């Protein structure tokens, strides 16, 4: 449903996107993961016809993003981080307006609006001006506006940025329902847990290029398997601890900030065995846990910096 190859876009001297390939098959979620300024929004803008690429080409729902822009727009929905809804209209008026701009008839637009307000739990607020809505309600309305024509492909540009945890979870569930109905979704996010939960495949973007691509598990596989992490009571014990855990782990453990990290091959019985051996060696344990690598680790190992710390503006 989404096929892009060699996409590039520069703004003056800034190369916002360079030689980006993306693909998503029908009914799946493609996650674009990256920090601010990585080029996620630029990619979405090209795929939704808001921006023309300098290089490369892309097809969405069978339409070329440059040549068939008008036809393409009739098959997609876009919801963004800004919750692009009109504050001076009611929720109902917003959705009806969008329906009419998709050229549904007056009655059809109204019916669809009522249907979506019900589905997104905005029925009670449908007659209220959007400026009285909470952030979560606005995002839901924004998402509803993207779904007015039951689009084949939906683009969600950082749909949960700035939402409280409860609204975020609710929006995730809505997106999951949408995908279950067969909609293809392209989701950008700077939250690793969001990509982990929602995306079938993830493309990691940094400085305008795709630096890794695969399923969440494949990406995690790239940074290795599970690790045993032991926080020591006394850092003086570190050499003893490393020696003990080296016998348990598959590689030599690393020690940093009072924590010994030992890659392990098989998790069964590992914690109990580690506790027994450390105890026997008279090493005090403050905390001990098995940890699967997260997308944070993936990001850190791929880019050398954390995903959510960079403060540069999105291009």
């Amino acid at each position, binding site marked *: 449903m989404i096929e892009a190859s060699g996409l590039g876009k520069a703004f003056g001297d800034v190369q916002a996107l360079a030689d980006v390939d993306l693909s998503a098959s029908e009914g799946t979620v493609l996650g674009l993961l990256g920090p601010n300024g990585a080029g996620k929004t630029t990619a979405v803008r090209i795929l939704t016809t808001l*921006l023309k690429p300098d290089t490369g080409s892309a097809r969405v729902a069978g339409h070329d993003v440059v040549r068939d822009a*008008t036809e393409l*727009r009739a098959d997609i929905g876009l919801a963004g981080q800004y919750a*692009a809804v*009109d504050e001076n209209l009611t929720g109902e008026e917003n959705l009806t*307006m969008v329906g009419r701009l998709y*050229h549904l008839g007056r009655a059809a637009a109204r019916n669809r609006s009522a249907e979506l307000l019900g589905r997104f739990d905005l029925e009670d607020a449908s007659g209220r001006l959007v400026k009285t809505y909470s952030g979560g309600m606005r995002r839901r309305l924004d998402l509803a506006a993207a779904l007015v024509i039951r689009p084949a492909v939906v683009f969600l540009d950082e749909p949960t940025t700035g939402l409280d945890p409860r609204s975020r979870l609710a929006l995730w569930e809505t997106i999951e329902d949408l995908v279950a109905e067969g909609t293809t979704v392209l989701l950008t996010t700077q939250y690793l847990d969001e990509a982990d939960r929602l995306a079938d495949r993830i493309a990691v973007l940094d400085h305008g290029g795709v630096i890794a691509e695969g399923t969440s598990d494949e990406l995690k596989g790239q940074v290795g398997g599970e690790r045993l992490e032991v926080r020591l009571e006394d850092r003086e014990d570190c050499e003893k601890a490393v020696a003990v855990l080296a016998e348990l782990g598959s590689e030599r453990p690393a020690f940093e900030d009072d924590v010994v990290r030992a890659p392990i091959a098989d998790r069964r019985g590992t914690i109990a065995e580690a506790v027994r051996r450390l105890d026997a060696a008279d090493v005090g344990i403050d905390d001990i846990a098995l940890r699967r690598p997260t997308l944070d680790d993936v990001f850190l190992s791929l880019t050398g910096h954390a995903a959510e710390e960079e403060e540069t503006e999105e291009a």
Partner: protein
Amino acid sequence: MTALGDVLVLAQRNLRRIPRNPDLLISFTVQPVMFVLLFVYVFGGAISTPGLDYVDFLMPGIIVQTMAFGGFVTAIGLSEDLSKGLIDRFRSLPMSRGAVLAGRTLADVGTNVVSLIVMLTVGIIAGFSFSTSVLDVTAGIFLMLLFGYAFSWVFAWVGLTASSSEAAQAIGFIAVFPLTFASSAFVPPDTMPSWLQAFADANPITTVVDAARHLFVGTPAGTDVFFAFVWTIGITVVFATLAIAKYRSAISK
């Protein structure tokens, strides 16, 4: 026809906002009324307009000024739509490309009609009367609305160019206020110092005001009516072109 439909849907959206924002509603109704009353009763006695009651002299001028300012909602609205991402939403829809700007400026015609009715009502209560034929009055009202429409495009360009809606509003006021006062709108230019009189005589606002005065109260106008339409259409063409170009590039960021 779908393009016209899109324009009407958006014009309706823009008009709905007005009664829901009391400050906007005030600027279209109370503000022109206040201006009419202040000028008629405060300055009116001090300004001499030979051969005309001041209220008859004033009304065409103050209507032109109000029409010139009528488009500021377009500046604020477009600026907000840009910053809030609504323009992106509109551009991702399979709608007519020009509908956003056309819907804005068309909505301004609606609000200008409201302002015009309110002002004429107050003016008539304060002693104003038309002294020309129905045809002339109709032509005058048409010129006023057309002139307001031309300035809506000026404000559309300002709204798309300014960095924020506050800046758009400030730029609009700073540009339009002196332009309307340094004209024949409120006082006869021959009472001004000669350098200002030269400016006022060359000012297109003077041409439009003199045309309106001719069409409403029958003062001599020479070629002013013809040139008022030329100026109005010229401003519309130039600023519509600028605004449309700006609209295309403003979102291609």
